[in-house]
């Protein structure tokens, strides 16, 4: 079931109504578990078996880890303790990553191996499998893994109630495309009784509406333009098209994914749950490091806590930090999808982050730049005082946005249908920046781009205010609701387009 479907518009009020009728937290949890399985099974009931498998394994593993830890006692030596617990962790990793690898990477690995053998003059002869990617598998796998790792690290205790844990894994608002919630924040909310809060409910309703505006207006309208621009890998739309179509794609992905996150968070709020903020101001920043502090925050912090830091982080000096950054980002790229395009995309980010790290520490910091420029470097702090600071920041934001369009092109090329050449695609796009021929192809789309991109920028600029809708004056709230509904009615696309991140 997708959020922007008629089925969900019926499902949500029914679930919310029944949820509050049940009153007792235990009953509510059981009901939400059933509702979550219905929500997920709407795609294909067979996928439920995978969620159930992941749930059973991680519940058992965490319980065993806890039991072993207790058996060993608090005075046990850390190394010995880890040695005792590690086999259980391996079980979880093997099962979760095994399932993920099979469903997500089987085709990729078998295809790559086949290509390699063919290039060596050998003819591979093995059976091919038409493996379908279960929706949301990357999200809930990372969620359950983080739980097991946290229990293994001793930062949280294993959960006693199987059904509570099952709800944590399958909680329907964020099951399919995140945010990837940590057990340490979501599990306590599952375990304790939620109380109805009017302000939380109001904020939730607004976030859902805002999410729909982002999805059916910003993402789907700009997505159409981006699709038109990139339907061929030999474009002839000049520099304006190169900018416009890739910017449309950037805003499309933002509207789509942050819209999904808003609907997920809003839905959770309606039931008294708080999910983490997944998007900040990703297009109002000035460097790649800040981008990852504002974009898909639940994934970037996951990668930081469960991959980058365990790899050593920056503890081994600069070279180790660059290496770890690159490995983390390549694996982050592979998390998005199975394909060399995603590997390239991850590598691109790893290199970019490394360059930025070097640049901000060794070059930028030593030059006596004006204060406005200095503020805008490295940190996400936005200069708000003084015209020169504001202008400097705006220039840097614009410059970085234009530069970072290359990131979106590499990302888009990663999701191309089979048979399209990613390299040709990206190289041709870069070439278009240096030509004026055919720019009239892009001009008809400018009004739509300007309108919807402005909406997307407004949503980011005012993201904190959007979070606190319940504190607005009633008249302002009413105007915002009416404006959002009107925008959807006039500009909404009602074709039930799937969310972009479902493919990951």
């Amino acid at each position, binding site marked *: 079931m997708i959020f922007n479907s008629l089925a969900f518009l019926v499902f949500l009020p029914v679930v919310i109504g029944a949820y509050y009728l049940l009153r007792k937290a235990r009953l509510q949890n059981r009901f939400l578990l059933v509702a979550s399985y219905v929500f997920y099974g709407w795609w294909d009931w067979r996928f439920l078996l995978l969620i159930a498998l992941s749930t059973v394994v991680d519940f058992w593993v965490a319980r065993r880890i806890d039991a072993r830890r207790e058996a060993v006692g608090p005075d046990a030596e850390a190394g010995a303790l880890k040695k005792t617990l590690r086999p259980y962790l391996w079980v979880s990793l093997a099962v979760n990553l095994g399932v993920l690898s099979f469903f997500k990477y089987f085709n990729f690995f078998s295809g790559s191996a086949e290509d390699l053998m063919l290039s060596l003059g050998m003819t591979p002869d093995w059976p091919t499998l038409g493996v379908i990617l279960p929706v949301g598998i990357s999200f809930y796998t990372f969620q359950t893994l983080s739980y097991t790792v946290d229990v293994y690290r001793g930062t949280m205790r294993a959960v006693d109630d199987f059904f509570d844990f099952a709800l944590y894994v399958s909680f329907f608002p964020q099951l399919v495309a995140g945010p990837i919630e940590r057990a340490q924040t979501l599990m306590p909310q599952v375990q304790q009784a939620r109380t109805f809060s009017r302000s939380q409910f109001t904020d939730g309703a607004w976030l859902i509406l805002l999410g729909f505006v982002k999805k059916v207006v910003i993402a789907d309208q700009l997505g159409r*333009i981006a699709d038109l621009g990139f339907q061929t890998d030999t474009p002839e739309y000049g520099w304006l098209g190169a900018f416009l179509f890739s910017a449309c794609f950037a805003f499309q992905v933002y509207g789509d994914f942050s819209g999904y996150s808003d609907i997920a968070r809003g839905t959770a709020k309606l039931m008294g749950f708080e999910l983490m903020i997944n998007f900040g101001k990703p297009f109002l920043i000035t460097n790649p490091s800040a981008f990852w502090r504002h974009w898909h925050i639940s994934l970037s912090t996951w990668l930081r806590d469960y991959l980058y830091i365990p790899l050593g982080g920056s503890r081994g000096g600069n070279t180790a930090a660059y290496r770890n950054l690159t490995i983390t980002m390549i694996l982050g790229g592979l998390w998005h999808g199975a394909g060399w395009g995603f590997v390239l995309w991850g590598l691109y980010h790893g290199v970019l982050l490394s360059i930025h790290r070097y640049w901000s520490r060794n070059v930028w910091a030593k030059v006596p730049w004006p204060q406005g420029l200095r503020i805008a470097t490295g940190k996400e702090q936005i200069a708000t005082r003084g015209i020169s600071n504001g202008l400097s920041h705006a220039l840097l934001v614009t410059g970085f946005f234009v530069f970072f369009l290359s990131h979106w092109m590499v990302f888009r090329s990663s999701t191309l249908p089979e048979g399209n050449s990613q390299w040709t695609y990206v190289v041709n796009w870069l070439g278009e920046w240096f030509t004026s021929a055919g720019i009239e192809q892009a001009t008809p789309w400018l009004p739509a781009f300007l309108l919807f991109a402005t909406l997307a920028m407004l949503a980011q600029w005012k993201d904190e205010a959007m979070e606190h809708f319940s504190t607005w004056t*009633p008249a302002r*709230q*009413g105007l915002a609701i*009416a404006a959002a509904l009107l925008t959807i*009615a*006039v500009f909404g*696309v009602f074709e039930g387009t799937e969310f972009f991140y479902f493919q990951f």
Partner: protein
Amino acid sequence: MPRPLPRLLLASTALLALGWTVYVLAGDALAGVLADRLRGAVRAATDGKLRDAAPFFLHRLRDALVIAAAIVGAWALNWAVVPRVSKWKGAWLPLGALFFVEANVILAVMARTGLFWFAMYAGGSAHDVSRFYVRQAIATDANAERLVGIIGSSQAGTQIDEDQINEALGDDLYAAQLNFPAAKPYSLLLLQDDLERVRPDALVLYLSEVSFLRGTGLEHLPLFASAGALSDFARLGGEADWDRDRVRNGWISAAVPAYRLRSPLSQRFLGRTSVPRPAEMNLPDDDLPNPKAIQDIAEDDPIFQAELERRARLLIYGEPVDFQYRALEVFAQRADAAGIDLYLLPGTVHPALEARLPEGTRAQMLSVLRGLGERYERVHYVEEARLPRLEHADFKDPAHGSKRGQERFTAGLVEVLREEILGETPVRPDSLVTVASVSSETHQSDGAAR
């Protein structure tokens, strides 16, 4: 103690009252002054369709006052309601609903004015709906003694030239094109309220085989839906072609003016290419403008032949045909009851396309039209022998007339109108006499063959 009205609201209300007073007492004089000064500009802007600009200015003044009244009314309502409702718990919900309803009411009021549609008009790239309402506004502004509306599909637009009619008969009647692309009889039921608002003395309805074949014409629901039109659909037995998405879109657009106006608004502000794709409003792709490749080419050209085949395949003969005949009867019945003379004009597609249609299609259509003319006093069937028979050079594609075809067909229509509406003896131009006599023979032989 009651709250005093805010000064700005008070001033706006006073200004509005003053505006209405001026309109009632001196509207004509004011419009006359403006018309004297801007006659040339208005005439140029309307391609010479408006000879007298005074009604144009008078109507726009009234439009502006109506819109202003709606806005000031909503403002006053908010002044009275918002402070009270704001004290409620969860006031955001009723206030959001109130503002949304108000915005829609204002939009609905605006959509009833010519001023709004002139603002929506974006020249050649204007949306079909905007064109339709602009034509409607111009027809009303014409202040004609006898107003004749020409209705039908885009075929009516390419085969009948209103300017040619007005040039020939302009002193006695005013003809206005009120056709809508891809319109079928059921679409006319959707447009009926809008057409009646123009208060025509007569309607000339251009119909060809295309008007009856190929579906119910439900694609126009989202643009012109009303509860009455939706119930007509079920009553006429359209269930066979029931399309859940179209009907749902229809209901939403009947209830939410902002949704109904989404296509013209998008087109006006975002440009032609940013309008929702045909699939969304459920307009069939094949109603999009024909590729230029098939225009003005020889009949035996393979491209033209392929287009003929494609068109013929699209024209499916089946249940919707009877549905359209029933819809036409309802339309005729209502026109008759409203005291509007309805002239049923048998149009035609390219002869080669007609030959590819199921046997008896045209004969059945003509028989239905003739029957309607016999049953209803104000419904008049125009015998096809009175109109020129069009040939290949008269078509720019298998369904739409070329400039030459338009001139010839309109010349024939002028004579029909002269005779039927003005009661004069037809003055047949030489070219038409020749064509008419030839086509009359052709029709007779065709009839014998059928």
